[in-house]
């Protein structure tokens, strides 16, 4: 046993190592969380740059700036980079930073594996991006890579894309295993499951979704690989396969994937609203059960993305009703959030602004999802800008909003400093107005029939596209201010208290700001845990 105490004591006294190599060999959850967050942020900027290219092309009707083929490469890479490079790693970064602190643990359960989960990402990202420079260009079949576009008709670079997906999936699975082991096993002995903060709960459920869904994605790309190169017939009807089979496998992964991207955001919001409404979270246990039922249902609704593939009618009906069913636990959550702030003594610091706007804008996305889930309506909406509007409301003003809210809320804990509140508010209003200018008109475009993933459009769509593009440039620019606020906080922020938000609850606030290198060397007591719990 002496070695352990030596290790622990050593680290306690010296903290992080010096020099750049520290970041390569680190096994510390905070270091790795920081790496994840900066990686995700740089991917967000890159994917955002691609989006600027897309919107610049769509500013006016007619072909403006690029070949249609390149336009398709941009939409494909934009989607892939945002999903696998920005949103997912950002949430893993948050999990790394927060979960050990929230459950009273010193670190993650498998610190070395944790390092590997992160350090696969830059390599996978580099392989993915290198496809731009290959003959035939980057993949251009959309982030959903449907066969046969991705098998018979795809550029050679597709095989590199396939391996990049394998690597990304591998990283996610290892990350998820680590989070499950951490939550179930490193939790303070006195903390029961139903004492866990909601961010921990939502991430635990997300980890199960990842372990169930990512291997299926790996299977899908493996079949693509053999169809492309070794003569198998999975997605080829002349050999008895079926291109629609690809869609089934993809969406069996894909629909859980969208909940992978939103559940942790639900968790974040469930922390911020009670703090700034100065009321306990309404319906803690129903939140937990709603999260679990959403996760379960998300495995059995996948074919609502495929209503137009000629499925048997019975299947259409089943998938329609199952999809509607998800709105119930989602509604429970929204109800609980509203009940949490109901008659609260609210103040509107920056994290609260992001959280409140999350509730409103995510709900809009949920409603458009319901509309899309209705089979006869979806025949009209499918593959139009209405779908684009839907998933950007749930992903940008949902998932991304949750991430930004979390950054402002926990930045004082991470850096030990406060950000500039005025600038934070300016940035919020700038972003929230411009994001609606980008995406709200896309509902109208879609309803009027503008197809997605096409670089040109007919004249009657010109005005709304113009508005949307202008909004997009403004929204893109808002991230310059965001970068400034974060860097300014790290460099010049005023020192923050250990509990910078007056009525914030949670074990992380019992630690000093910035939090010590190893979060809890002594597990917190039952009394501490109850005092900081989210129970009402």
């Amino acid at each position, binding site marked *: *046993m002496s*070695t352990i*105490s030596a*290790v*622990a004591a050593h680290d306690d006294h010296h903290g992080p190592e010096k020099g750049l190599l*520290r970041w390569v*060999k680190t*096994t510390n959850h905070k270091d790795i969380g920081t790496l994840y967050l900066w990686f995700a942020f740089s991917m967000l900027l890159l994917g955002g740059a691609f989006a600027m290219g897309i919107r610049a092309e769509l500013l006016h009707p007619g072909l403006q700036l690029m070949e249609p083929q390149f336009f398709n490469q941009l939409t494909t890479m934009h989607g892939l980079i945002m999903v696998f490079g920005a949103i997912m790693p950002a949430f893993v970064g948050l999990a790394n930073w927060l979960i050990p602190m929230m459950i009273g643990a*010193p670190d993650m*359960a498998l*610190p*070395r594996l944790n*390092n*590997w989960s992160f*350090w*696969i990402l830059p*390599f996978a990202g*580099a*392989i993915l991006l290198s496809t731009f420079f290959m003959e035939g260009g980057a993949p251009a079949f959309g982030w959903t890579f449907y066969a046969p576009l991705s098998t018979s008709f795809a550029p*050679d670079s597709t*095989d*590199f894309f*396939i*391996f990049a997906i394998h*690597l990304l999936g*591998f990283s996610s*699975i290892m990350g998820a*295993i680590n989070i*499950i*082991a951490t939550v179930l*096993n*490193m939790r303070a002995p006195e903390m029961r499951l139903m004492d866990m903060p909601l961010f921990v709960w939502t991430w635990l459920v997300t980890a199960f979704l990842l*372990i*169930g869904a*990512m*291997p*299926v994605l*790996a*299977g*899908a790309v*493996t*079949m693509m690989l*053999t169809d492309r*190169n*070794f*003569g*198998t*017939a999975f997605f*080829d*009807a*002349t*050999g*008895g*396969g*079926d291109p629609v*089979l690809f869609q*089934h*496998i993809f969406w069996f992964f894909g629909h859980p994937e969208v909940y992978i991207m939103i559940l942790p955001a639900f968790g974040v919001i469930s922390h911020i609203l009670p703090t700034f409404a100065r009321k306990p979270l309404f319906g803690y246990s129903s939140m937990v059960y709603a999260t679990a039922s959403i996760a379960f249902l998300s495995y059995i609704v996948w074919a609502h993305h495929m209503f137009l593939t000629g499925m048997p009618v019975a299947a259409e009906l089943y998938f329609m009703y199952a999809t509607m069913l998800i709105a119930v636990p989602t509604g429970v959550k929204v109800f609980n959030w509203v009940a949490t702030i109901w008659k609260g003594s609210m103040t509107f610091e920056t994290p609260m602004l992001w959280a409140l706007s999350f509730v409103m804008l995510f709900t809009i996305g949920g409603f458009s999802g319901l509309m899309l889930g209705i089979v006869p309506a979806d025949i009209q909406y499918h593959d139009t800008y209405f779908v684009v509007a839907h998933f950007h409301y749930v992903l940008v003003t949902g998932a991304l909003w949750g991430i930004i809210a979390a950054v402002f809320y926990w930045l004082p804990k991470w850096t030990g400093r406060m950000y500039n509140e005025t600038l934070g508010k300016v940035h919020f209003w700038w972003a929230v107005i411009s994001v609606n200018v980008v995406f709200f008109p896309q509902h109208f475009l879609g309803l009027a029939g503008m197809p997605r993933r096409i670089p040109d459009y007919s004249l009657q769509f010109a005005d709304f596209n113009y508005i949307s593009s202008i909004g997009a440039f403004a929204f893109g620019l808002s991230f310059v201010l965001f970068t400034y606020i974060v860097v300014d906080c790290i460099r010049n922020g005023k020192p923050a208290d250990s509990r910078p938000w007056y009525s914030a609850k949670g074990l992380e606030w019992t630690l000093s700001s910035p939090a010590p290198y*190893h979060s809890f060397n*002594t597990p917190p007591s039952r009394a501490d845990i109850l005092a900081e719990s989210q129970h009402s």
Partner: protein
Amino acid sequence: MSNQNYYIPHGTYWPIIGSIGISTMFVGFANLIHDVSWGAPVMGLGLTILVFMLFGWLGTVVNESISGIYNKQVDRTFRWGMSWFIFSEVMFFAAFFGALFYARILSVPWLDGAGNNMFTPELWEGFKATWPLVNTPGAIGQSGTAFSTGFELVNPWGLPAINTALLLSSGVTITYAHHALRKDHRNALIAWMIATIVLGVLFLGFQITEYGHAYHEGLKLTSGIYGSTFYLLTGFHGFHVTVGAIMLTVILYRIQKGHFNSENHFAFEGVAWYWHFVDVVWLGLFVFVYWL
């Protein structure tokens, strides 16, 4: 005292070496399939780095384990980790089984006009849905299909049945090995372990023989959806048996070195779980790929 209950390892270079290895391997492989001359050597290099990393990393873990610095908590973490890793493998196979069932139950009959697909027979004149799908739609009445046609079926009650018996018995022998380990019966333990490994290797040998037969009788990767599902399912399974057999051998070596005792032997159990998982997958294969 309580701050000494946690085990937190130091910084490590193994993960970054692993990342370099695995990416090099994939880049090499991707170039290899595009007939780039340096593809194969680069892939080999990546694989070497990866294997080097695995030995280094796991070696560190083994050393830490035998020096006794792991506690019950670390043991539980390893158990959770291994169980969920195996679950992820289950889901990987589920994708391929899903493809198999989809083809058998839906897409192949649909090509013959089942369901609401009354027009598909126009496309594939003369095509009859059968399973195993011996004649692919494209091969009938149409010229220039990429898929070969016509093969002899593998008789499930020949080698596949023998292989089932072999793998199932290996599941029994490894359980006996575990009992022996728990009772500290070293010689019995080693004997049962050797039996397990021999059964596994025999299985692999028969599987290769059977591949040879099947290929000779015309069943190829390019034989349409039956060939695709047959070879990918059995192929990935065979790969997992190989990995399992290698892991069993490492465990046998560690037993001989005296790394385990009746109390602490997570590595043994983890590998045993993996072996059982491979066993169960085979049962699914035998029933749905060979037999029914």
